């Protein structure tokens, strides 16, 4: 299982008929069991890229190679749950083969045990995200895609959910692609950090992190972060906005 991405360009046509370049040359590869993190400013085309990688958008110049028929687990930025089905049904519909012990283990880790029979409309954003995560892990994915899974949660909640994600990923060594604009999340979760420029997106740097996730000390994390910040600031087009 290996993912190879070479997207030469991707353009959008806006409603007014103008052409917008979203991606201008992104190439990277990801090995089995590796956690790649795409880091870039908001609006730089990260979500567009994920849609291409998941096979949802065939309209681009370039090449994406991943094993055909690989099971994908996708955590969208908005949870995208079926509002008319309960939490448990939402997970089971995506993963009809998942058995009860596996589901209870997932619900246990993601603190969803009490919410199995609730409808998504009754959940907070943080809980709805957890359901989306449970759904993605329940399918036993070969390729896991996480689009800003920690965005718009308060700091305490985000860090707890980050630990839960790390625990789930460590337990199954699945090829994972995580998208975030937060450098801290990137360094704590990733095996490899891929820095993207503002729109149209290009790869600024592709930095592997050698130390395993669990063994990274605060000092090392700080060092990697400052290295990443240096790379971002060093690029000719400065990171704007966030």
């Amino acid at each position, binding site marked *: 299982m290996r993912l190879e991405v070479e997207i030469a360009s991707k353009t959008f046509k806006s409603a007014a008929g103008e052409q917008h370049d979203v991606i201008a040359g992104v190439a990277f590869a990801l090995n089995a069991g590796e956690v790649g993190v795409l880091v870039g400013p908001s609006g730089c085309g990260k979500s567009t890229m994920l849609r291409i990688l998941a*096979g*949802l958008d065939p309209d681009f110049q370039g090449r994406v190679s991943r094993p055909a028929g690989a099971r*994908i687990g996708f955590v*969208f930025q*908005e949870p995208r749950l079926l509002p008319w*089905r309960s939490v448990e*049904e939402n997970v089971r519909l995506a993963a009809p083969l998942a058995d009860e012990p596996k589901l209870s283990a997932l619900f246990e880790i993601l603190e969803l045990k009490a919410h199995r029979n609730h409808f998504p409309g009754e959940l907070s954003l943080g809980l709805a995200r957890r359901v989306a995560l449970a759904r993605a892990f329940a399918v036993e994915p070969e390729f896991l895609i996480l689009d800003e899974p920690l965005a718009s949660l308060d700091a305490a909640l985000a860090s707890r959910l980050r630990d839960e994600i790390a625990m789930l990923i460590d337990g199954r060594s699945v090829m994972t692609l995580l998208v975030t604009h937060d450098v801290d999340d990137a360094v704590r979760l990733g095996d490899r950090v891929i820095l993207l420029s503002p729109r149209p997106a290009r790869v600024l740097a592709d930095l592997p992190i050698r130390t395993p996730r669990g063994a990274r000390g605060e000092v090392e994390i700080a060092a990697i972060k400052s290295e990443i910040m240096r790379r971002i600031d060093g690029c000719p087009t400065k990171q704007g906005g966030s």
Partner: protein
Amino acid sequence: MARLLSFAMFVAIWWIASLFAGDAKLPPPPTVLTAMIAEARSGNLFFHLGATLARVTLAFTLAMALGTAIGYLMGRVRLADRLGDPWLILLLNLPALVAIVLAYIWAGLTEVAAIAAIAINKLPTAVVTLREGARALDAALDEMATVFALPRWSRFRHVILPQLSPYIAAAARSGLSLVWKIVLVAELLGRPNGVGFEIGVAFQLFDIPLLLAYSLSFAAVVLLIETLLVQPFEARSSRWRPRAA
């Protein structure tokens, strides 16, 4: 409780009005009730109500099934929409009477002609409503279903159908009332039985108690179906929505 009160008020207003209008024009409730009981005893009432109900059921089912399929197609496929739109506008504005008379001329005074004419009247409104529903389908959920490779049937049943169900309920509700109205006209013009036929007879004989007996029994059946079938379905399909105050 409120419903009972509302019903009692209806009877009271009717009774008072009959005092002013006179027995010949508006007979009081007991007279009509007597006529109703006599018709029920002879079995006529149930026979005619049954005939009408059977026509309503067939025409309604036919129009809903076809209308849902065509509406979904027109909402999802641009070409189908452009091809179907002129037909839809024509059918929407076709007077019920024209459809019924033409059906009887072309297909004879048959059951098939009556049911087809009723269904044709209801079809376009179902198409229009379902087309809106299909246009409003959430693309984000479609993508989710694609990524997680939901099987066709599961996708239809759990992703698409729940999104369409409010539209189906709306089409059923408005369509049912349309069918109730039209079925009597179709029966009056070309059927030897049914509530519409009996009302036609009562009209020719100026038998007002009989006319009211059939009209009110018919209204009672409509109300019953509305409370027992349509409303529970609506409540069920919107069970997941956070309750409004």
